[in-house]
């Protein structure tokens, strides 16, 4: 009995585990205590008796602490006045689903994945083309953040695991430039672009603003802030590009104004201690700015969705809802603006209404942890990607269901959804719309062969462009005098 209790409360699993096991020639037959080898700089004078005394003391201390925290559990706290109570706190656990599959529609989206391939998915033909910066994919170039670059939706900024940010052009279909963004440790947790500057934030909490010039000479950041360790997300306000919010594990939500002072504009406060008078831990996994107001929504690893209002004097969350029992990893706003869709590590997607704090419905299909979610700005479509290597597009309203599903062979980290409206009317990329129809059929065949060859990489794409050029030359010959 005593040895079992000792085993619980020590940080070491316990010599008993390794000693008394039924093992075959294992490494841990330590024999008697007197003959054991000294570990971790222990004194030879520490006899076995002192050891037991110290562990007993630790054991007592731990149990006293536990008792203290539970001592007043049976005494109910005084009811808080109504104004101070949080507006609603429903426990949302029900799931309703209405699966239905719709006819194919066309869309275009970009996704980043763990091995630095950037699948560009054309759902009109259910094809994905991979783009790699250097021909062969490498795990060091795993994409951890994606955002749109300057000038509409023609450029994408790709943040890789080796701390470089690459510029990718969607029209040309290739990587244009790259810049190395050193400082701090960990991967990129947020990437944003504002007025010709590049904002990056890494895991260890270093937020830097870089001048976005083509020259690689300037390596010094314009501004550097330390946000706090363990950052999980940095998000830029789409309405005010110089305002940025950060949050993470044991790192409360902070809103920074990059043109203002070095202190955060809004620093959130943790909620009150729970009914056992224990501190509620913080783990902000994703942040979104609500449009047309200063409010922010966060989703946490402790399955809570919280709304903060910097305009109100209250630093604590204004509204809170919970969903499920697993950490929420991704979140996006719906086109209506009244609800958010969250995804958790079990692949469950739920739409939560922010006005009432209740669950509107769930979306089925994902089998792995949700890593990226994005809604289309006007159409009721949601793109989701996750660790189960499949990109899915769901329809959110009337009726709720899966629309497209594309298998991409690597685990997906993030995605970007293009907000363009008329996909159906656009001709195929990257051809000009003035091409003669026979050539179009040839390119159709080319696309089909690309699909059949299962993911050609950049060399493959180049060869198709060359083929197009030779054909153009051939067409010129009969009528022209030039060689």
């Amino acid at each position: 009995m005593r040895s079992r209790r000792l085993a619980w409360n020590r940080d070491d699993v316990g010599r008993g585990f390794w000693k008394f096991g039924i093992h075959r020639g294992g490494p841990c037959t330590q024999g008697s205590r007197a003959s054991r080898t000294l570990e971790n700089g222990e004194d030879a004078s520490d006899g076995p008796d002192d050891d037991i005394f110290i562990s007993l003391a630790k054991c007592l201390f731990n149990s006293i602490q536990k008792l203290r925290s539970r001592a007043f559990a049976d005494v109910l706290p005084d009811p808080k006045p109504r104004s101070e109570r949080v507006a609603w706190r429903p426990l949302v656990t029900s799931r309703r689903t209405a699966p239905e599959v719709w006819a194919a529609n066309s869309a275009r989206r970009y996704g980043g994945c763990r091995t630095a391939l950037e699948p560009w998915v054309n759902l009109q033909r259910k094809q994905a083309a991979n783009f790699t910066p250097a021909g062969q994919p490498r795990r060091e170039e795993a994409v951890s953040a994606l955002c749109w670059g300057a000038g509409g939706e023609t450029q994408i900024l790709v943040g890789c695991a080796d701390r470089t940010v690459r510029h990718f052009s969607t029209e040309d279909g290739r990587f244009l430039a790259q810049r190395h963004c050193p400082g701090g440790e960990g991967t990129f947790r947020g990437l944003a672009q504002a007025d010709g500057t590049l904002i990056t934030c890494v895991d260890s909490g270093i937020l830097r603003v870089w001048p976005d010039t083509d020259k690689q000479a300037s390596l010094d950041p314009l501004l550097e802030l330390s946000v706090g360790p363990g950052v999980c997300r940095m998000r830029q306000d789409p309405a005010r590009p110089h305002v940025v919010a950060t949050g993470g594990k044991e790192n409360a939500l902070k809103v920074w104004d990059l043109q203002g002072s070095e202190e955060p504009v809004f620093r959130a406060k943790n909620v009150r201690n729970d009914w056992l008078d224990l501190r509620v831990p913080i783990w902000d996994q994703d942040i979104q700015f609500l449009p047309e107001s200063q409010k922010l929504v966060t989703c946490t690893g402790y399955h809570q969705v919280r709304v903060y209002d910097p305009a109100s004097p209250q630093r604590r969350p204004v509204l809170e809802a919970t969903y499920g029992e697993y950490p929420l990893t991704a979140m996006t706003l719906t086109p209506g603006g009244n609800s958010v869709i969250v995804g958790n590590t079990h692949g469950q997607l739920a739409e939560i209404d922010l006005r009432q704090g209740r669950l509107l419905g769930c979306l089925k299909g994902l089998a792995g942890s949700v890593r990226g979610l994005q809604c289309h700005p006007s159409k009721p479509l949601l793109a989701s990607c996750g660790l189960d290597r499949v990109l899915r597009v769901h329809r959110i309203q009337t009726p709720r269901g899966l629309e497209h599903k594309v298998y991409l062979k690597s685990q997906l980290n993030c995605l970007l959804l293009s907000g363009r409206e008329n996909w159906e009317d656009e001709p195929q990329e990257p051809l000009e719309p003035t091409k003669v129809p026979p050539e179009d059929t040839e390119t159709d065949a080319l696309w089909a062969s690309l699909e059949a060859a299962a993911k050609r990489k950049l060399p493959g794409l180049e060869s198709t462009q060359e083929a197009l050029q030779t054909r153009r030359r051939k067409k010129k010959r009969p009528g022209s005098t030039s060689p």
Partner: protein
Amino acid sequence: MAKAGDKSGGSGKKGLKRKAPTEEPQEAAVAEDETTESGAQPPKATAFPPGFSISEIKNKQRRHLMFMRWKQQQRKEKLAAKKKLKKEREALGDKAPPKPIPKTIDNQRVHDETVVDPNDEEVAYDEATDEFSSYFNRQTSPKILITTCDRPHGRTVRLCEQLSTVIPNAHVYYRRGLALKKIIPQCISRDFTDLMVINEDRKVPNGLILSHLPNGPTAHFKMSSVRLRKEIKRRGKDPTEHIPEIILNNFTTRLGHSVGRMFASLFPHNPEFVGRQVATFHNQRDYIFFRFHRYIFKSEKKVGIQELGPRFTLKLRSLQKGTFDSKYGEYEWVHK
């Protein structure tokens, strides 16, 4: 009326070999006419109202009788149809149409797009750099820790011991109420590569958690049909210390590849063919059957096998990225 009643009573008794009564409301009328002609003619079936079914008969014995009669009728018809078809085929000879393929569950499956193409470069690169690559590059050799849930009973303990004889370099430790999350860092520091935890419910092992150690995925299986050595009929003698070969069948999809590699990394890379022992993980319809055999080649094509070792069936419930953390870990695949 009485006559009809008598006749129906009579024909009911004689009607043991007659046609099913469900078919004839009209024949009842015909029967009435025909009974007047000759007694030698076999009386037709009894009169039943239209829309009558055998299940409406209240008397169980009578109902059973009617049903048996109907079944025999059906069987006869089926046999006759088969014979006719066979005769037609023989008559046609070479010109006969090809035999239709019977529908099985495996035939009717929708093609799974995640099936891995052997020439796929992306998947090959992914596998060359994932958590198992150090095993497949021969940089690490496996060392397994087998343990159970808290307070295991006899069957589970014996299964652990037998598994430790099947898997080379496996060590069994008794779990004394210790948290897995605390055991894992200690295992890593003692160079274990895999952790197997056998869960038990009501004295019977029913679950398996397999965690690849430095930072590898954790698979949670449901275990069923566990047979220990003494419950296996016609088995061979106990397995020797030779390193067995491994057979992994049907792990074709991307998820199957991950799980298959996990099983492969339990065994050392260099099988000793002298020992003639083989461990098989056969995946069929998402159930993985584990068997351990000793084989001997009697001639070029004939093999004799003896089943040794424990046998069990696994079904994957979830594959979690990272070491065991069921609450806060990220799942690659969850059975839904």
